[in-house]
């Protein structure tokens, strides 16, 4: 076996778990081949240097004051908020999930898999980022936006818009396209959407697109507006398998 092949396996030898026979073969080769042995040492040392360099950089870290302030704000009002106390069933569901995590933590050092299975907390945390907005219980589970507040339909394709929420940092709006939709990334990159308030189009911060067969759910965050403002959502270049007459669709949301 040529040295190149041994060196290609060094990453796995040093950082992974090779089968015992491959491990033995490499160790045998390293004991007889100086070039490969030197390469193995250099690679091991390089890995150590990487670890040390990254850790030093992390140790020097300072949490930006605005992030810290946001964190404190997101925790403190949460305990006093009336909606939290008024949904005891939901609160205990969250508590139950966390108990599962902590039990797992006390039994094994590796709790990553247990935490990864928490289904609710992401949506909850997203809501807490904007503690001043009105939270409906439907909004707490991010996967089900509830009943649409406005809809429009053409040739079997339907656009449903869900109640936008306004916070101090952003306006979040969810809308779904349902029907004969193209399920490709390329089709979605052509897609355009604008949300306008009374002073014109809002600046978009983030757009999340979740695609399943026959359904595209979009969650978009825009710059904040004053609560109670009328908003207009305009979508263009929809990812449709069958072109329809309309190229641009508009839905207005009354305050």
């Amino acid at each position: 076996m040529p040295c190149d092949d041994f060196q290609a396996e060094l990453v796995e030898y040093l950082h992974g778990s090779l089968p015992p026979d491959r491990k033995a073969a490499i160790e045998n080769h390293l004991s007889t081949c100086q070039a490969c042995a030197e390469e193995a040492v250099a690679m091991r040392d390089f890995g150590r240097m990487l670890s040390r360099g990254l850790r030093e950089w992390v140790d020097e870290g300072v949490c930006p004051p605005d992030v810290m302030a946001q964190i404190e704000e997101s925790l403190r009002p949460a305990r006093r908020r009336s909606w939290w106390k008024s949904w005891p069933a939901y609160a205990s569901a969250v508590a139950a999930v966390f108990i599962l995590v902590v039990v797992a933590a006390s039994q094994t050092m590796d709790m990553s898999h247990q935490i990864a299975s928490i289904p609710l907390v992401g949506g909850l945390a997203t809501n807490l980022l904007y503690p001043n907005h009105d939270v409906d219980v439907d909004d707490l589970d991010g996967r089900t936006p509830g009943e649409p507040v406005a809809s429009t339909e053409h040739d079997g394709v339907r656009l449903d818009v869900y109640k936008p929420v306004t916070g101090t940092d952003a306006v979040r709006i969810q809308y779904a396209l349902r029907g004969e939709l193209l399920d490709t990334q390329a089709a979605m990159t052509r897609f355009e959407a604008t949300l306008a308030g009374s002073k014109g189009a809002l600046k978009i911060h983030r757009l999340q697109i979740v695609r399943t067969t026959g359904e595209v759910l979009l969650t978009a965050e825009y710059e904040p507006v004053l609560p109670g403002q009328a908003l207009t959502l305009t979508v263009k270049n929809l990812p449709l398998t069958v072109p329809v007459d309309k190229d641009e669709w508009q839905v207005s949301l009354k305050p």
Partner: protein
Amino acid sequence: MTSEDRFFALFKPEAGRLYRTAWAILGNEADAGDAVQETTIRAYRAFDQLKGGAVAFPAWIRRILVNTCTQIIRKRTRVIPVERPEDLSEERMTPDMQLSLDGDVWDAVRELDERYRAVVVLRFLNDMQLEDIATALDIPLGTVKSRLHTALKVLRTKLQAENGERRGAV
């Protein structure tokens, strides 16, 4: 002392490290801020049940953070950022913070493509096994290995070219 005070007393000394760990994994400061915030909320809700007390806190919250970050990466396959993350991070950066960004290793790692950077950081900063990285990022083990292999090649070329002398001291 309320449990909120106790939590913050333990959290605050870790905040800077958590923030940078998230930044390293996610590649930009805007997402790092979100990840630390979500981590804090998760940890705070579970805080009453933390076993092992203050000593166990840093490792415990770091694990929650790494998990929050890898969840964010898994979701990213369907997230289209409209603004470049760098644009957001510039706004947040104060002159003080810029001064501390001069680590050679981080400068090289941060330039890696997202796919490579996450694997390198999880392996070399967070000491994760390759199998666990594959699970966390929901990619095949073979992909983790090949990305690590490629990333190490790139990093070695870059870092050793930049400071060959320092390497001799390792």
